């Protein structure tokens, strides 16, 4: 038994949660990418094929998934920019606040998109 190997305690802080969100969103985006390419590939097959897929995207479930996707992208983008700031700008204490800022900005972007599609 090696229970103390579980690192629960050392991970319980905002910068680590930010990392977890970044990895999760990055991986989910990778999953989404093939689906995205598939839809785009329909365009080459002609307008009818594309329209069929686009009609499918009008459904409420797909709409909800789209909002989730925008959230993922926004979270990954803002989180990625935060990391670049942490690593490439000289350290400042405001960089701790950046985590909250990235969360806020991604939520705003997600909300903005939700209002647009609703």
């Amino acid at each position, binding site marked *: 038994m090696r229970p103390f190997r579980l690192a629960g*305690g*050392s991970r*319980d*802080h905002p*910068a680590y949660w930010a990392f977890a969100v970044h990895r999760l969103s990055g991986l989910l985006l990778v999953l989404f990418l093939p689906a995205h390419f598939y839809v785009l590939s329909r365009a080459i097959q002609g307008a009818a094929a594309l329209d069929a897929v686009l009609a499918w995207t009008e459904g409420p479930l797909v709409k909800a998934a789209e909002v989730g996707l925008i959230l993922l992208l926004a979270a990954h983008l803002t989180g990625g920019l935060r990391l670049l700031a942490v*690593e490439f700008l000289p350290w400042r204490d405001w960089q701790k606040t950046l985590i909250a800022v990235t969360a806020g900005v991604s939520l705003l972007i997600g909300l903005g998109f939700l209002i647009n599609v609703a």
Partner: protein
Amino acid sequence: MADMASMLDVSVWRGADEGRFVSYPVPRRENQTVLDVVTYVQRRLDATLAYRFSCRVGMCGSCAMTVNGVARWTCRTHVGRVAKDGRLRIAPLRNMPVIKDLSVDMAGFFAKAARAKGAFRPTADRTADFAVIAPDSPRRRRADAAIECIGCGVCYASCDVVTWNPDYLGPAALNRAWTLVNDERDGGNRERLAAVAGDAGCHACHSHQSCMERCPKHLNPTESIAGLKRATVLAALTGKL
């Protein structure tokens, strides 16, 4: 006789990498540190308990353990701050082999400081005059910000990248390298930057900041490693790596 409120329920890791937690009742005292608790167990309850300490005042870096899941220097950690409802769970540091009970083998940890070229490489001999370094020069300030490391291994035990890649040099060794990169008197930076630029070096760090979050000296190894990331990229771009 002590009532329950004045007793601590302390479970302590016994064994090596394989082992189990053993529970000990320890009287609660005012201004008691976690190291006091461990010492009580060893002196009064079970003399076979193995643990390490020396200075008891936060200077030597030998007393670090995992306390309720978090790596800490135990001599400067008050029980009142960490014991939720009078319970303490004390384990050895993570990311290092356990020798016995609460003592871990830190040989690999220190070897990495050497691998990161953490030793000073003088450019002058004893006949030379003192090097004059302005206290407010940018490099002196950067070295200053990272210099107070006591080698306790708390950051190393808290870093997931070390867990994932046991070869990773880790926050303390890289932080040490960064102080020397900023040392005007040091002549070993070409080799040092090459040593920290590899697969298991600074670029493996994901900026989780667990090291900075847990360092008892409030150092910021994440910042030092970011500095190394920039310095190694610059060196590579200018053909000096």
